């Protein structure tokens, strides 16, 4: 309750953006209904081993969220996937598999992202060769069982990372840059070297996009302290030999020479794509025709989805973004929602 009126707001998604939005909305005395398709909050944070640039563990952030949400009143509806919003006058009706589950005066959509399905880039053999994995696969391994990287008890001799898998790639149908994969590759490469110091680690990149705070410094540290090799050239093709090692073909574009390399593991740095559990809103086309991400009414001035009244977006459902960016975006969406409800 605020000013004697009820402000009912629903937040769809309990990842970093949704958590920040729900916490901020509750702090502004709005009545918050918080949904997530999973039975627990945190979204992809639950699978992350370490974050960048300071190598904090994801658990620390999750604990922070837990602390805050316990302290304020938020109605949690975890295990319910809201996949449709219908507008009825000024009410927003929320449906899950065609069943009405609730209503609200304002909604913040924070449905997040999925990782690009690397099986679509068949030339890398993901899903076919056991030793070709993606960055989220590696993250899970680093978090829960790094022993899995050993082969028959022996440390891996060499591991290669491929940047830009399913990003900036017309063949994959995705022309945008996913922004965070470069720093992920750098951080994971360092993680490998910390586990297996004598393992040769090579990152195959096109451009190193290290835009964030501490990112460029981490890139330099990867080269100088950890002796990770960066070769400028995207891997063109991977295949498997009889020893189940992976053969790569790439060009060292700075040397203008083609090269082949045999490694124990190939890690595909996959980009972010819109979540498959996006929310439909009436019959509106709310997502960008090219990328599939939600579109704000105006990238500079407002985060209402496609100009629809009362419906806001936060986090990676609007495009690839980092966790701090998602958190900031969640808080900002809550503020916009409050402003909207106050004014109507």
């Amino acid at each position: 309750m605020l000013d004697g009126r009820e402000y009912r707001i629903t937040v769809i998604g309990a990842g970093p953006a949704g958590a920040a939005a729900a916490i901020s909305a509750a702090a502004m005395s709005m009545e918050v209904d918080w949904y997530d398709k999973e039975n627990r909050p945190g979204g992809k944070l639950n699978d992350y081993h370490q974050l960048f640039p300071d190598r904090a563990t994801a658990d620390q952030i999750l604990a922070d969220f837990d602390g805050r949400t316990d302290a304020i009143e938020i109605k949690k509806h975890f295990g319910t996937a809201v996949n449709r919003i219908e507008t009825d006058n000024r009410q927003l009706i929320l449906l899950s598999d065609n069943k009405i589950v609730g209503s609200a005066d304002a909604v913040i959509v924070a449905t997040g992202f999925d990782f690009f399905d690397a099986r679509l880039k068949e030339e890398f053999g993901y899903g076919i060769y056991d030793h070709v994995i993606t960055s989220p696969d590696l993250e899970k391994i680093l978090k829960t069982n790094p022993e899995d990287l050993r082969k028959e008890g022996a440390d891996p001799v060499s591991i290669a990372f491929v940047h830009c898998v399913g990003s900036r790639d017309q063949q994959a149908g995705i022309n945008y840059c996913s922004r965070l994969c470069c720093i992920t590759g750098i951080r994971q490469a360092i993680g490998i070297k910390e586990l297996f110091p004598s393992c040769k680690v090579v990152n195959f990149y096109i451009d190193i996009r290290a835009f964030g705070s501490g990112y460029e410094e981490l890139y330099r540290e990867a080269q100088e302290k950890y002796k990770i090799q960066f070769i400028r050239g995207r891997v063109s093709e991977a295949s498997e030999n009889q020893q189940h090692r992976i053969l790569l073909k790439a060009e060292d574009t700075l040397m203008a020479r083609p090269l082949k390399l045999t490694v124990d593991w190939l890690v595909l740095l996959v980009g972010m794509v819109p979540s498959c559990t996006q929310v439909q809103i009436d019959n509106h086309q709310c997502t960008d025709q090219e990328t599939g991400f939600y579109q704000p009414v105006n990238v500079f001035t407002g985060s209402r989805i496609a100009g629809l009244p009362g419906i806001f977006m936060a986090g990676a459902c609007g495009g690839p973004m980092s966790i701090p960016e998602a958190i900031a975006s969640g808080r900002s969406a809550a503020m916009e929602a409050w402003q909207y409800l106050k004014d109507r």
Partner: protein
Amino acid sequence: MKKYWKDYQKDIAEDNYFYVRSCIRQNFFPGAENLFIDILRNKLGKVVFEDADHTTCTGIGYHTDIVPLETTMTVVARQFALMKEKGFKNLVVSCVTSFGLYSEILDLWKHQPELKKKIAGYLVEATGRIFDEPGNMVHASDILYKYRHEIAAIAKHKLVDKETGEPLKIVDHIGCHYAKTFPERGVGGSEFPQVLTGLINAWGGSTVDYPERRHCCGFGFRNYLVQANRGYSISQSKIKLESMQPYEPDLIVANCPGCAMFLDRWQYTLEETEGSVYGPNDRKIPVVTHEELAGLVLGYDPWEIGLQTHQVPVEEMLDKIGIEYDPDLKYADRQGNLIGNPEMINQQVC
């Protein structure tokens, strides 16, 4: 709804085929095309028409840059015109370079209709003919793929070692111009094409994935046709042969006639020049075309279908499957008389 290329199936016409022959296949595998026609007509009951007035598509000339784009397009338009004149809509192409060329031309015309109009004008001016684009355009191996189960149902042999019951280990080689240029024109797309693995699996064999599976055989057009450049061509085949060697393949099957010819001949040349041999037990690996593979399982006589024209001997492979043949008739004509001096060949056969 994710779609993976390796699951991709394309539209292949069912019957009433207008068949255009391949320069390379006719020259180097003279039994293959009539075998293909016979299988379609007499084993599968299909209508196959061959127009005596069709010519080369000029693909080899196009890719060696002595036949310019508009000339090639007009010759291809002429092929389409013959097809229209005879009332056919379904084009079946024997050569993979041709198939790639038709695909490229149809795509260019789709994006640049004024170019198509220009070519139509040239064709009328030069020959008085008008053309329609084919309703369906596929490679000959696609037809066998479509009817692979029907062929399996009437097959006399399986691609299996008759002694051990083990499936033969078969390398499938797909011509570059089959699916690399337009993945949507190839069954299974460009990375894991299914057109030949489908045949192998349906007919009892097992497929071999080896690191250089997708590498070009090395024809390279000018890189073979000009004698001075042949090192390129042999080197690419060598890369493939070295890569497949540890997998000990019993057989190689290729849908492009050039690829089949090179993988066959270069094994001979590599043995002569370097002493290298890439098959199991120090033998060379026999190479067959898709229609020859079908012919073998259907029980055709190996010499009738032209396996004697291969440089790498096929007898051991035939023995393994249990296909019978008369060694005395290998280099004979239909009357059983030896042609020329085949003893010269036999001295070199390993």
